[in-house]
């Protein structure tokens, strides 16, 4: 990689790594080790294609898409069928944040109970604030499929979280 391009990549990676990591933590329902691994893999893949990525515009969005697909590919390798994570990593609680600890745990556990693709839809829609169409593009799925997943995931989360989120103040 030529120096100017390498610098450009480094600047991008430093600027995005934090956000990618936070997204990855939500995707993995709080498995911070897996999240680190996914972010490294994502940054690695972008490194290889940086020339094209940087020219194409919106490299940040591209990185997010690569992260999501890397996560899904990992899930697919791990389990042959789409199934929810039963074991919730207990280390989620270790990373002290400023938000309420019990809500944090409850939310991560609820995310962990969603099938991987549904979780990806929720993260893209409600954390990344992407539209249904943008989410569909990122997942290589149809927008109808995304809507179905979204409805299903929201229904499940509502069941799991209604009480906790009911008290959550929406500004």
């Amino acid at each position, binding site marked *: 990689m030529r120096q100017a391009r390498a610098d450009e990549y480094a600047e991008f990676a430093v600027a995005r790594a934090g956000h990618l990591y936070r997204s990855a933590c939500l995707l993995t329902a709080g498995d911070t080790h*897996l999240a680190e691994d996914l972010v490294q893999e994502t940054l690695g893949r972008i490194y290889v294609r940086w020339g094209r990525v940087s020219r194409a515009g919106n490299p940040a969005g591209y990185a997010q898409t690569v992260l999501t697909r890397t996560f899904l590919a990992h899930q697919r390798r791990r389990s042959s*069928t789409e199934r929810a994570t039963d074991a919730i990593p207990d280390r989620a609680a270790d990373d002290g944040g400023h938000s309420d600890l019990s809500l*944090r745990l409850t*939310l991560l556990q609820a995310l962990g109970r969603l099938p991987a693709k549904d979780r990806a839809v929720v993260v893209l829609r409600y954390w990344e604030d992407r539209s249904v169409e943008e989410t569909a593009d990122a997942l290589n799925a*149809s927008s109808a499929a995304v809507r179905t997943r979204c409805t299903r995931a929201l229904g499940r989360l509502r069941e799991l979280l209604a009480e906790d*989120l009911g008290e959550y103040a929406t500004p």
Partner: protein
Amino acid sequence: MSVEHDEDRFEGRLSDALHDIGSGFDADRAALVAAGRARGRRLRLRRRAAVAGGAAGIALVGVGGALIVPWGGAADPLPSSSSVAEQPSGTPSAMPLTSRELITTLEGLLPEGKFSDQEARGTGDSPLPPYVRLVYDDGKGPGAVGVSLNRIEPGSDHARETTDCPDRTLVPHDSCVATRLPDGSLLRLFQGYEYPDRRVDTKLWSADLVTPAGQHVSVSEWNAAAEKDAPVSRSEPPLSTAQLKELVTAQVWRKYVEFIPEDPKQPTASAAPSHAVEPGVDSVLNTLVPLLPKGLDVVEKGEDYTYLVLDDGKGRSYVQIDVQHGMGDVADELFGADSETLPDGTKVVARESGGDKGVEGSVMWTVDTLRTDGFRVVISAFNAGTQHDAPTRPTPALTREQLREIALSPKWDRFR
């Protein structure tokens, strides 16, 4: 409060909660970036190695395995690149394999002729993998013949690169045949050139065998007395591909591989079982493209996902394929009463659906296949250039029969 309003509020709260909780995660960004860049460099190296691999399988031995750590362990995501040379360990067999044994073995397996310039490295001489080479003259001119042995993780990317035929545009060659032998070993017979750019017309023919037990035997021969810097001495290397195959599959080489100490730091030990690793996008698509009927243009190729967009002149058609392992547990879900079971036990079912519900006139044809070992190949074709756009044509560019033929092709066996 209306249900809709309530739903909106729930979505709003969920979004707020995600933002609050997500922003609570923090990592050492500099470390992530450094590790990401290192992975990128390794990925790039791996791709280059894959390209070079076609012509120079032997040269790759000793660097390949260490580069590939798919999901070996989150605890140490950045293992320092280890090579066989640096990590000789494990308990070698009591008696090392000697260079003399290697030379005698090769001479014994070759047809009658004159042997000269013998050279070999046994397992006692060096921590590097063993090899033997000599100049063989069957009476029609001398040609160099070499055998190298190593361990390899079956099913790994490295193993696949060793036994897949390279892209002709990247590694020009005259012939390449990749097959699976009855014992499950993968064999690649390759006829190409020492210099892919053919600045010198030295021919390099090779046979690479990867057994299910992880033994890699590589035989190469040249139509010159040495790999490089020797004049072309005959029109073709001395052994035919049939003879090469016989030589590479000789059981004795596999026994010799067992003399190589196992390297506990190789990913073989810690990585997920190879059958759990799904094949890469490129290798799946590179297998798919040659199976397509003639007269179809590939106008788009997936990079992160295994799909192609085809055009037969009558409009674009999106084709997606999945190659998966361990799907036996969902056989009942996927293959109902309308499925068919072939004599070898493979289940096949064809499905037809309207594609995306939201798109008028959308057609999706699918053929799903499941081998008895849980290996699944499923292919779908659409009558549009994407999964969600309006149809560009009445039916997909591939017929149901063509989809079936593709999904059942023995070419997929290399991923099993």
